[in-house]
């Protein structure tokens, strides 16, 4: 029998529907793969084997009766940020020790409604703060990719590093992820997978552990553009429980995948051509434009003049919102408690012990910029800058641009424990320089694998779209995927 774990989600769906195999077999194959690989990759922080097999059995009954949902019997990995009833939900943090929610997040509930099977919870940067998956309380995720001729461990990117590594190493058919500044697109680019951050408001944030509420958005990581589209259709949808959820019909995203780019205008923002950008990234970008041109798109130079202010403004807005959101972790309602001589002492000791260093740093900076006397100078100013960043994009779209093509990351994956990044937090933050503008403006963005660097490591391109026009992104990303026509599976070492 073929290795079931290597099927795309779309092919697994076909196989289940025409009864070539059962969900119990498919789920069992993934569980064995996880058991074998997880000690090396550390992608899962909790495996829910028994529950997975129960869900698979229920799916098999539905499939046999011809009543299967859109994702019936498909085994998925869930980022540890999504509340899953009765199951480990800790945002990969020590402070949520033992937390098992009494409720289910809307996004995962939508997936179970459509018949998907949960394999377990995926590792991530603590509270989604990081770009390398090294800030997790559960230790770093190791990328399934290694540079040619090297045994050095690389990061899978972050914060959705567990999601990206699990998808790329065939430890789930697809995964949920979240993106506040690039946390879906950067790990997807590092692992040769497809990741989309939909328009803000497309996926409900209800039941997803909050980091920065005006930036957070859930989306999928998958092995192909079509798989990502299938996941998106199930994850999306209006939810009255999230006041920023948008009441808009969810298109059949998969139907848009083969639509092509004929007649589309693709914008190329000159501000994304950064000093010191590696030549191979520049070359890949040009290659991407050539592919889109060859399929009938027009390429147009555009300017997004406030691009360089996006990252600094982000590092005001995101920590400010985080400091407020994370105030709820106080040792009273859930998770860790460290006793003290009085209640304030208990709060301070609990939070000092429960949060990791990166999280504490961001809460501190957020508290500072929101403190008396600084609010206008920092937070309000950053929110004004956000208006300008958004207007840059609006101007480009009004001038006839349908989508924008940029590199996804400034480099390929770097090593675990990279000293440059460890010594200077700002250097780590620069990983998100191409992705963070999209969150600031609330737009959809997709990362699609497009090439490899000199050491055989995956490189991705990013497409940015108009609000709620994810369909164009799927269509254009598919053109890049088809044109690149490369095998982005990692060479197995684990």
């Amino acid at each position, binding site marked *: 029998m073929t290795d079931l774990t290597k099927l795309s989600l779309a092919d697994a769906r076909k196989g289940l529907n025409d009864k070539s195999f059962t969900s119990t077999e498919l789920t069992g194959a993934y569980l064995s793969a996880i058991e074998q690989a997880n000690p090396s990759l550390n992608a899962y922080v909790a495996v829910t084997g028994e529950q997975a097999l129960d869900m698979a059995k229920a799916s098999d009954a539905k499939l046999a009766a011809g009543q299967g949902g859109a994702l019936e019997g498909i085994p998925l990995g869930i980022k540890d940020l999504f509340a899953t009833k009765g199951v480990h939900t800790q945002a990969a943090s020590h402070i949520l020790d033992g937390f098992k929610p009494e409720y289910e997040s809307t996004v995962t509930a939508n997936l179970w409604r459509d018949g998907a099977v949960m394999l377990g919870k995926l590792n991530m940067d603590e509270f989604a703060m990081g770009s390398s998956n090294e800030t997790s309380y559960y230790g770093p995720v190791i990328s399934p990719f290694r540079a040619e001729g090297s045994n050095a461990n690389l990061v899978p990117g972050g914060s959705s590093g567990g999601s990206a590594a699990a998808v790329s190493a065939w430890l789930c058919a697809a995964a949920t992820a979240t993106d506040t500044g690039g946390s879906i697109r950067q790990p997807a680019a590092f692992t040769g997978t497809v990741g989309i951050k939909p328009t803000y408001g497309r996926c409900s944030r209800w039941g997803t552990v909050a980091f920065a509420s005006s930036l957070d958005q859930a989306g999928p990581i998958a092995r192909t553009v079509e798989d990502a589209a299938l996941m998106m259709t199930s994850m999306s949808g209006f939810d009255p429980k999230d006041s920023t959820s948008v009441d808009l019909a969810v298109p059949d995203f998969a139907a848009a995948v083969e639509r092509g780019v004929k007649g589309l205008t693709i914008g190329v923002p000159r501000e994304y051509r950064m000093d010191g950008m590696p030549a191979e990234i520049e070359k890949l970008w040009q290659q991407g434009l050539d592919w889109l041109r060859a399929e009938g798109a027009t390429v147009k130079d555009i300017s997004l003049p406030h691009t360089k202010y996006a990252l600094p403004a982000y590092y005001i807005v995101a920590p400010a919102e985080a400091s407020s959101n994370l105030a709820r972790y106080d040792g009273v309602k859930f998770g860790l408690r460290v006793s003290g001589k009085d209640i304030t002492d208990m709060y301070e000791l609990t939070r000092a012990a429960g949060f990791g260093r990166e999280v504490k740093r961001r809460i501190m900076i957020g*508290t500072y910029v929101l403190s008396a006397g600084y609010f206008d100078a920092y937070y309000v100013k950053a929110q004004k800058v956000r208006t300008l960043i958004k207007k840059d994009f609006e101007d480009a779209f009004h001038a006839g641009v349908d989508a924008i093509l940029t590199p996804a990351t400034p480099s390929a994956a770097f090593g675990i424990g990279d000293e440059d990044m460890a010594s200077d937090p700002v250097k780590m933050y620069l990983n998100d320089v191409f992705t963070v503008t999209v969150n600031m403006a609330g737009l959809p963005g997709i990362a699609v694998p497009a090439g490899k660097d000199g050491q055989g490591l995956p490189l991705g391109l990013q497409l940015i779209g108009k609000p709620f026009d994810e369909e164009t992104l799927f269509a254009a990303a598919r053109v890049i995927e088809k044109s690149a026509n490369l095998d982005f599976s990692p060479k197995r070492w684990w």
Partner: protein
Amino acid sequence: MSVDAATVKRIGRLARIRIEDSEVAAYQDELNAMLGFVEQLTSINVDGVEPMTSVTPMTLRRRDDVVTDGGYPEKIVANAPLSEDNFFMVPKVIE
């Protein structure tokens, strides 16, 4: 703008995160590095620009002012480190 050691302690207090004396210097460096990075924003003119308050142009929905959920205190306290009779237990606050 740069933060000094006393400010680090004060921010830690506001954030309810205990900062030990041995940690102050490292936090001070890191916070100043971040503040230095965001300093670039001073060069941009935002006169007359409205701060972004809503990511997508939408008016916040309202719903009927009625109770739609609740009535399960045992679930609310189920994850509490310490609870009794469906109450969260905390150290004595009022003397």
